[in-house]
């Protein structure tokens, strides 16, 4: 039995939703970052699914996109975690609801 495309897409949507929920509901900045990574992964899955189920599989557009996406996600995670470390050094906390000095 073959899975239709929609299953992959729904699954990626589900992962996206889970990642988003974690990003907005948890206090720790690291967990926000993990949530963001989950969201990115869900999007990557979307791309691969569309590539696989697309009409022209010869053009590796989806695959290339995902490769670049993974690279960027790695860079972003590095910088983000460095920031978290720096903030921790300054404020002794990584709870995002305490980091509100830019309030209006």
């Amino acid at each position, binding site marked *: 039995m073959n899975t239709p495309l929609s299953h992959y897409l729904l699954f990626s949507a589900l992962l996206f939703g889970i990642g*988003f929920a974690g*990003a*907005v509901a948890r206090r720790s900045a690291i967990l*926000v970052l993990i949530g963001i990574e989950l969201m990115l992964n869900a999007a990557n899955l979307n791309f691969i699914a569309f590539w696989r189920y697309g009409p022209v599989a010869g053009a590796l557009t989806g695959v290339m996109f995902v490769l670049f996406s993974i690279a960027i996600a790695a860079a972003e995670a590095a910088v983000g975690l460095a920031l978290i470390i720096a903030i921790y050094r300054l404020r002794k906390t990584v709870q*995002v609801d305490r980091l*509100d*000095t*830019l*309030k*209006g």
Partner: protein
Amino acid sequence: MARVVQYLWLVPAFPLLMAGWGAFLRRDRRRTAAALAISGVAVSWLLSIVAFLTSLGARPIRQTWSFNWLDLAVFSVPLGWVLDPLTAIMLLMVSFLSLLIFIYSLGYMARDGNFTRFFCFMSLFAAAMLGLVIANSLLLLFICWELVGLSSYLLIGFWFEKPAAAAAAKKAFITTRLGDLGLLLGMLWLYSQSGTLLFYDHGRGCLEQSALARLAAGTTLGGMAVSTAISLLIFAGAVGKSGQVPLHVWLPDAMEGPTPVSALIHAATMVAAGVFLVARAYPLMSAGLHPAALQVVTWVGAVTALGAAAVAVAQNDIKRIIAYSTISQLGYMMLGLGTGGVAVGMFHLITHAFFKSLLFLGAGSVIHACHGEQDIRNMGGLKKLMPWTFATYAAGMMALCGVPLFFSGFWSKDDILRAAWSWPVSVVPFVLGVAGAFLTAFYMTRQVSWVFLGQPAGPASAARESPPVMTVPLLILAVFAVFAGFLGTPVWPWFHCYLNGERTPLEPAALVAAPQLTLLLLSAIIVGLAFFLGWRIYANVTWQSSRQTDPLELSLPALFRLLQNKFFIDEFYAATVVRLNAAFSRLADWLDRVVWQGVVDALARLALLGARFSRAFDESAINAGFDAGCDDLRSAGGFLSRAQNGRIQRYLRLAGLGISLLVLALIWGCA
């Protein structure tokens, strides 16, 4: 001669320049002021001599020089000057007398603090008078006429701290102004009728044949010829300036000014300007078949001659007597102009200028010696104390009375009486003239007796002869007073022929011809009778105080009081014209303070009301609206800024909400 005529303007220009320069001098620069004034008028005198000599044998006898003063596209106003015998003789007389009187003033005004201002004004007067004389345009003449009036005002009111002097200056100016109004109207009418104000302009001038013919032909209200009407208006100006009845009231009061001023302005020159104007406008006045203007001139002159002489009989101020005498003699000049023509009137003007200024300067010498005393009843016996003054004064008095043969006044007055006798219209002016001559001799005898004869009394006892700077001009004038008459005797009528541009014949027989001899004898008798009467009444009486009554007053009290009060003319004017004027001015004041002020106040209040309304509207509507808008903006901004609490999770939530809404919107759009 053309060159002389072109530069004729230099004659008044020098005194004008000196007046301008003198206006900026400091008060203590007395020598400079005097030097400026005297040098200015001396140069004018020399230039006048040049002009006179040029005009002696010139052909044509009259030359003009004009230029365009005001040149607009639609019309142009030319001005110019003329050199003819009338101009030349007046220039000579005015500049010479000005020079003598300026020199005299050095001594007379020596004690005065406003020396500099005096000479500045006198120079201005001299310039204006000379300009008046050379004018070829009625406009230029009028300009100088007004300037002369202004100088007269400034000089009458020279001691303006005295209320009487300030009032006299004002009276002089206003009274002459009434006459000037007539002159202005006449000038405007003449311009509208003839299209030019130049007197002589190569046939186009308003005193030349073509213009005169047109003016005499036109008629105006009352069937009068236009030329007559214009002449009467111009004569009105002369009436004011020359002190004819009824505008004579300013001249006696003008004696408030310094005596040199009275001598120059109110005896010899300014008052003569009116006579000069009539002489200048004579072609206009005599135009047409029945020149009615000249008749008016004659009657006015005759009445003035007698009336003023009568008033002079009862006056006690030394200068006032001479002032009324001046008015009377001006009347004679008008009489001469009206009956005999330009030469007759002008001859008397010239001789009168000399002996009247002589009399004034002599009176000034007396006043100076008596330290300001002017009442003749407080003087006496000055014959011994001031011999030179007495001698010259006596010469002048003889000339004024017209003592036969050797004094200039006789010949000129004789001319006038002869012309009046042969006037075709009426013989009444002749009678009035003879009566006036009698009174003239009488009041002069009275004055001379009181001032010079008898015993010294009061301030006169301390008098001494005046310094040479004052007596030398007196001497010079006395010479002229005697010998100037010989220029116009019937035997050798040089003056008359010169004015008409003819050669002068020598006619010894004219002296004994029929009307001439009769008149000569008549004049001699009249003058002799008056002298005798005056001598009898006044000569041997010594005065103890000025409280004593005049012998004439004792015998004819009512008449004397009438004459002393100048026929109550001043009082009559005060009760009528002056009161009317005061009423009008009160009306105007009320109008201004109540009506116009009220209107202005109402407008101001209206404007304020508008302003207040505008401000209320501005504050309530605009400001409130604007402020409310700003407050709303601020609160909106505050709301938006409060939404940013600095927590990224809220932002993320909002972004997610936005994305989901966007997706839903897209679905809804596509489905």
